[in-house]
């Protein structure tokens, strides 16, 4: 048991990771990298849960993290399927190229 890492440190790390992920989603044009950035954001949230759980000595945080892991797996599988379809029909992975879905 690694003792006494202050909760703030963990949360700052989570925030940093989240921000990095967000920047990745916004800045990258390649859709695969965008998906990876989303994963980073999800993990950041998971980290925040775990840290908070540790702080209060509850298992809920870890339960939530497992929940997020499962969800992320499902999300990646759907996302990658979409990426394949996109590559198939547009011959590119540039997210901006696929802007036809608008009102």
């Amino acid at each position, binding site marked *: 048991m690694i003792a006494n890492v202050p909760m703030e440190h963990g949360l700052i790390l989570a925030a940093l990771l989240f921000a990095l992920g967000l920047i990745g989603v*916004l800045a990258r044009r390649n859709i695969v990298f*965008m998906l990876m950035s989303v994963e980073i954001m999800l993990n950041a949230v998971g980290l925040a849960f775990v840290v908070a759980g540790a702080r209060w000595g509850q298992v809920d945080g870890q339960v939530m993290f497992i929940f997020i892991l499962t969800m992320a797996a499902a999300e990646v599988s759907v996302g990658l399927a979409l990426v394949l379809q996109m590559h198939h029909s547009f011959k590119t992975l540039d*997210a901006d190229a696929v802007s036809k879905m608008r009102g």
Partner: protein
Amino acid sequence: MNDFLFLIPALPFAGFLILALAGRRLPKTAVAFIGAGSVGLSAALTMLIGAGFIASPPQDHAFTQTLWTWMQFDGYAASVSFVLDPLSLIMTFVITGVGFLIHLYSTEFMLDEEGYSRFFAYMNLFVGSMLTLVLADNLLLLYLGWEGVGLCSYLLIGFWYTDPANGRAARKAFVVTRTGDTAMALGLFLLFTNFGTLNIQDLMLHAAKQWPVGSATAVLAAALLLGGAVGKSAQLPLQTWLPDAMAGPTPVSALIHAATMVTAGVYLIARTHVLFELAPVVQAAVAVIGAATLLIAGFSALAQRDIKRVLAYSTISQIGYMFLALGVGAWSAAMFHFMTHAFFKALLFLAAGVVILAQHHEHDMFKMGGLRHKLPVTFWTFFIGAASLSALPLVTAGFYSKDLILWHAWSSPSGSPGLWAAGLIGAFVTAIYTFRMVFVTFFGESKTEVNHRPGLRMLVPLVILAVLSIVGGFIELPRTLGNAPLFSEFLRPVFNEKAAEHSGIASEAVLQIGATIVALAGIFVAVLFYLLRPDYARKIGGVPLFESIRKFWLSGWDFDALYDRLLVRPFLWIADINKKDIIDSGYTGIANLNRSLNALLSKTQTGSIRWYAMGTAIGAVVFLGIIIFYP
């Protein structure tokens, strides 16, 4: 016998139903037989019932027959029930009698027309409605007949429907009279609210008991009923529809727009005379309206060229006399003039119809002329009618009835020299325009060919009406000439008039002589200008001042133009500018606002996923910020 009273209106209604449902499949003879026959039967039945009624009058001089409850509200059951009393008997007698003669005449007159069965269907419906009107024992049923005759008038004025002008005249007649009818309906509401009944007998009893003379409600009620009466009877200010109503076939003009329907207003006032006695102001207004109308219409008749329009204005004028009589409380005199007028005016119209038919539907008198020899029977009957209309002394019915009115206008307590003078001037003008018509049409050089000679079915009614136009006056002889007031005696149970003892016999005789002189003077003027020296008339007509007066009179004192400017055009204008419904544009505005907001927001919908992510992120930051800094 009285139990068959309901058949009097029911027979023409039955005729209408048969003709309306099966008329087009029936041969013309059958149509004529049903159309004229139903009214004829009705007339015969009226004679029988009337004879029984006169021989042995029922109690209270009124017999009521109730058929069924029409509608029930507020504890009052308005029923379909008919009442026979001296007043309604006289009306019924004239309607069925004159009506039958006109139907008989029409069977020949309309023979070449399309819509033969339609014509008789409408005519039968009219007679049925008119009989309902006069026989109704409550004002609601009376209103049914009242609107019903208005409808038939509309249908028959517009009988030749392919010409839009006829349709226009028909609609004008209906709408103008309906304006009056609406006033009358309001009168009904007022009476019902006050007394909880619409039965005429009960209403009059209640009113006499509960309303003091001159009370505001009584004045209002009488004024509203008067509104209905002036509409139907074409009196000021709602007289404008009648001259245009001449667009209908001539028998229609004779029956509806001269003999019967237009006198419904007179009947209504006579029927509810108790109310008018309670409202002396309104009664005085009736007299003034009558006097003004008879003058205005009389002068208008002077300038007309269309023979039917002369007769139309003359009708308005003569009904003005009846109103004058009503206004001075001479109820039976008004009814007497109604009866004689029905005879001679129907006669004049029917004879004019012969002339018109003989000349290819030519209405302009000045294109006729010299018809005296070609249509002798028509001429003589027309002449008798004209004499009666201009009250040729002693021998004509018109003399006795008009003289009675003039005498009452002078001598009755509510009469006045002014009203009498108006009547007298009117009589002078009447004589002029009547004989102008006779001379222009039947004398002078012959201008056209006569290509249709009337048959027996047209001439017999003319002769019968001519006889009636003479002998019809002898049932009410004034005190100066035999003193046999049978007619007003017969009506006494209805009106409770005091026997005429206003002033001496001498003054009555003087007035009669005066009236005689005036009538003869009028005829003389007509002889002078239209028979002996036509160039005088032309010379006077050439003066610009007279020319413009003539135009003014020709247009019926420009009432049409006035109403056109005051009512018709503003209405059309409003209708036109609001065709698209201004309220709707308000809602369209809301819709458009939404649409532009939508356009604005859909601009943000770029399709770029990173743009959406950015939006989400910024939104999240903003909301977090709000939650953190403004807890």
